[in-house]
């Protein structure tokens, strides 16, 4: 781990948001680099000062009482006796609403295409992977460690490229389950952003041009090349994610399996 990487991760380290493997990496770096160690100590001191000195504003007792009072008042309101016509009207509205809801439910259920479901699957897999200790099954920045790790776990061998020099260090690999099949997930990082690259053999074997999707602030890029389907998922902006994809795509091209 170099200084730039350590500095990127120092806040996550401080906030205990790193997985164990990277904690060990940062530990090692901090022990050997006095400058980064000084930066870390300083951030730790700043954090301690904020936690100690910044005012915590507790809610005034009067607000608590007032809220209790107005919540109970709201709860009592519907209990007032109503005219019979009003009740009938309420029932009519409820039936109308139920009809509208079920119609829109049918429409809504009709909408998800296999493509949409796949995109949602990939996104939740990406988000799940960001939870502590779930990022990588095999944590290594060495492509020759990550690639063989998939042997015997998948019936295909995903292309694993190292893009450290281009600013996208490989973090590791993970076996994931997407769209009813086990797939290889390769994890890369760009600054503080994690990129999950999902790879599996395509059914048609056709080449496919790059297509972009956006969901909940995440970017997903899909393409097919050399018989493989590729999906890159990240909260990185689309332009930089596209740079990453271009590099992967260029490196995968000359040595197709």
């Amino acid at each position: 781990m170099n200084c730039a990487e350590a500095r990127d991760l120092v806040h996550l380290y401080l906030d205990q948001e790193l997985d164990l493997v990277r904690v060990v990496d940062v530990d090692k770096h901090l022990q050997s680099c006095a400058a980064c160690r000084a930066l870390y100590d300083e951030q730790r001191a700043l954090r301690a000062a904020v936690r100690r000195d910044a005012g915590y504003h507790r809610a005034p007792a009067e607000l608590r009482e007032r809220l209790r009072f107005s919540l109970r008042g709201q709860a009592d309101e519907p209990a007032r006796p109503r005219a019979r016509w009003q009740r009938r009207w309420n029932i009519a509205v409820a039936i109308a609403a139920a009809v509208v809801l079920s119609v829109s439910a049918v429409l809504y259920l009709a909408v998800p295409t296999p493509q949409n479901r796949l995109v949602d699957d990939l996104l939740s897999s990406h988000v799940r992977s960001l939870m502590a200790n779930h990022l990588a099954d095999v944590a290594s920045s060495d492509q020759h460690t990550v690639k063989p790790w998939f042997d015997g776990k998948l019936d295909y061998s995903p292309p694993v490229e190292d893009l450290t020099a281009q600013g996208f260090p490989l973090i590791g690999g993970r076996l994931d389950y997407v769209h009813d099949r086990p797939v290889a997930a390769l994890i890369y990082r760009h600054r503080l952003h994690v990129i999950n690259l999902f790879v599996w053999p395509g059914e048609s074997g056709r080449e496919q041009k790059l297509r972009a999707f956006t969901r909940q602030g995440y970017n997903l890029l899909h393409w097919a090349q050399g018989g493989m389907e590729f999906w890159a998922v990240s909260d990185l902006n689309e332009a930089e994610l596209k740079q990453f994809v271009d590099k992967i795509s260029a490196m995968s091209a000359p040595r197709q399996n």
Partner: protein
Amino acid sequence: MKDDPRTRELAAQHHARRFEELALPHLDAAYNLARWLTRNDHDAHDVVQEAYLRAFKFFDGFHGDNARSWLLAIVRNTCYTWLQQNRGLRVNTSLDDLPDSGAADAPLVSGQPCEDGPEKLMLREDDRALVNRALEQLPEEFREVLVLKELEDLSYREIAAIAGIPLGTVMSRLSRARKLLHKHLQTLVRET
């Protein structure tokens, strides 16, 4: 039976009590966030009250297991709506569009990455009030992530849910917030 006024009344009371049990324990956290975002007691009071009534209205739709995050997200949104309406403040969301290692970082991490540590920050006992002042000076986006992280000790995941931003944005905002806070503090210490 369902239309019986007595049954309805009991159901409504039960509903309100369940909301109270779930929401009132987080009132301090709600108030603290609103107080830091609005920067005064009177407004924090109004915002929290409005947010709680709003939350109660939408309580039927809450099926999650993290009531605190759900409530704080509503408090936060109410704060921002309030800030926009009452002060005509421009809520700046374009800060995240800057590249992470770009302009915002430049003053603190410049030159050789491993050569120059930032200037040492020494806080004396009577400088303590400065932390509050420095924090108040931060733009809202930065202030809120620091308050949620340092004062409420929430995880990045919870902060992401409350602020409605991706995890990566929580990380970069937090690291920039700390750099900026550090800078403000240095300036304040030098002035005193």
